[in-house]
């Protein structure tokens, strides 16, 4: 079988691009090692989860009731008994020294007051308000449950019960995995692609390639092919790590999760090409994709700050960021297990952005030097 010259050029250029990637240790590190590190880092090290909260116990007159409340609280993974304290001063000191995060203080004769108001005080180190709010709420729930058991109410009481759907233990990985997926795919596709195209301008090879019968768009297609394949490898790695190492399940359809990821990869590649049509050197390409694209992705995509809490202007701005739609779609599909119809809006937003970027890039692409 004889290949057409255009196809032969395409293959030769895709091969050349693989050589560029695999012969540069830094590139291969960024492309294949960084995603793994990021997932592990976000999954384990950077966490807002409530685990092993250090509890100080001040129980002046221990009795059956106080013991049962304390036991219930300490039985879970989330709370560990760190200190047994005897005076309010000691509580304050222990909190200040960071020996405990939470103090559980029973009033004397707690048992006797069970049907009157039996008082129990939680003193919390709130220097990290998010975490402390989380574990305080959890502690209150456990204590209320225990109290109801010890002393069933005489009159009917209304109790509220909160169930954390989709993420029962409020695990941070559930939030980070979709975010990191958006971040990594964006980084690899947009930044690496734009840099590799701009590098050809900078080294002057673009000058020779332009003075040849090969069509520039074909060359660019050959250029992005390796990044497309590597992104798929990364997608698989991230999903495997998420499921088997971080324990984040794929609750919805894996097929549609991969499909929407491919859509996002294509949008990111289009961003990379678009940046490369604007930037003249690698530093500009890096800054544009780094500062102008990455920062909004991190700040406005809901990865760190919830979109719902943003001022209207920023919410509106975040709608322009493809990663925001992708992360939202991944959350729906992967964490909530929603059917694909529920991400129609996200998919449409991504498809439109991709189409606009490809059109702009083609229009912007120069057949000449200036």
């Amino acid at each position, binding site marked *: 079988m004889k290949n057409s*010259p255009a196809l*032969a*050029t395409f293959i*030769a*250029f895709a091969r*050349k691009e693989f*050589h*560029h990637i695999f*012969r*540069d240790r830094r590139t291969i590190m960024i492309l294949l090692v960084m995603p793994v590190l990021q997932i592990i880092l976000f999954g384990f090290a950077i966490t807002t989860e409530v685990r092993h909260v250090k509890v100080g116990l001040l129980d002046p007159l221990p009795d059956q009731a106080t013991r049962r409340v304390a036991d219930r609280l300490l039985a879970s993974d989330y709370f560990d008994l760190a200190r047994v304290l005897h005076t309010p001063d000691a509580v304050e000191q222990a909190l200040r020294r960071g020996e405990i995060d939470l103090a559980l203080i029973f009033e004397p004769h707690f048992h006797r007051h069970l049907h009157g108001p039996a008082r129990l005080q939680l003193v919390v180190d709130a220097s990290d308000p998010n975490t402390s709010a989380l574990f305080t709420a959890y502690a209150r729930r456990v204590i209320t449950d225990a109290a109801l058991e010890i002393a069933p109410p005489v009159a009917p009481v209304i109790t509220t019960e909160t169930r954390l759907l989709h993420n029962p233990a409020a695990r941070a990985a559930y939030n980070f995995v979709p975010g990191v997926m958006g971040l990594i795919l964006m980084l690899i596709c947009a930044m690496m692609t734009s840099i590799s195209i701009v590098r050809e301008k900078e*080294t*002057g*090879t673009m*000058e*020779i*390639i*332009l*003075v*040849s*019968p*090969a069509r520039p768009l074909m060359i660019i297609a050959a250029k992005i092919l390796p990044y497309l394949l590597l992104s798929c490898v990364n997608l698989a790695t991230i999903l495997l790590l998420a499921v088997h190492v971080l324990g984040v399940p794929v609750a919805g359809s894996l097929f549609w999760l991969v499909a929407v990821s491919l859509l996002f990869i294509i949008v990111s590649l289009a961003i990379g090409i678009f940046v490369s049509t604007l930037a003249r050197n690698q530093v500009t390409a890096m800054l544009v994709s780094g500062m102008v694209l990455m920062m909004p992705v991190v700040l406005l995509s809901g990865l760190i700050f919830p979109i719902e809490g943003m001022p209207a202007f920023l919410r509106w701005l975040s709608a322009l960021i493809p990663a925001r739609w992708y992360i939202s779609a991944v959350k729906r599909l992967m964490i909530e297990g929603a059917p694909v119809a529920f991400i129609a809006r996200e998919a449409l937003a991504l498809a439109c952005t991709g189409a606009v970027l490809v059109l702009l890039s083609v229009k912007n692409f120069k*057949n*000449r*030097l*200036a």
Partner: protein
Amino acid sequence: MTAAIEIDALAKHFGATGALNGVTVNVERGEIFGLIGPDGSGKSTLFRLLVTLLLPDGGRATVEGLDIVKDFLKIRARVGYMPGRFSLYPDLTVEENLHLFATLFGVRVEDNRPLIQRVYSHIEPFRRRRASALSGGMKQKLALSCALIHRPSVLFLDEPTTGIDPVSRAELWETLADLKRQGVTVMVSTPYMDEARLCDRVALMQSGRFLDVASPPEIVARHGTTTWAARAERMSKLLTDLRAHPTVETCYAFGDRHHVTPRPGASPLLLRAAMETLGHRQVEISEILPGIEDCFIRIAGQPPREP
């Protein structure tokens, strides 16, 4: 039959340097045409216009009868272009670079092997070496091989010999002579005057204009005047003193000698005596035949490159 390259009042406007202010010339088929001028005189701009990388602001030009604006795709398939700085892939090997450019033009390396044999044979022993690890001369030979691999009918070489060793330079020029015999038209820029003599015709360029276009002997016949070569023990002081002397019109450093253009009626013996009076020792001043560079200085009022 049209000329290989026809340039008519071609202009390109830029900010400070490199602009082209309307140049006109016809380059014949199989001719080696040289561009000579200092940096920023518009040589590279002219190359980029002719290989269709830039659009002209005025005038028109054709390459092989094809318009550089309308027929740019057809021109790109036919010409070979070697930019002023090394523009191959440094992380690919010699062989990989060559094969990549062959594929780019839809040819096979084996088919056009004889054409590049003379230059490529020198780098073939290093064919598995990465381009970044080649010496300057070898890099240029590889770049020329890549520019020739598709058997172009017109070859554009922007300073192919700058910064490479004299032996490699000679080999490169032998290749150009070979190509000329095979009917390839070559447009080449060079800062070396000894290479200008190897061209069929040269254009002396300054500030985006052609000062003159002619064969090297014609250039010398037209612009050459009496020229003396001078040397002494302390060359830099000699240059200052010669320039200050009333019988000297211009004086420039040329390698290990200074070239002096005397005013009418001056005599080398008197000038030598004057220099000895100023304390110079072992002064030698003798008449020589003027070269292209002397002519360039006469017309342009500046040397074509920094000494």
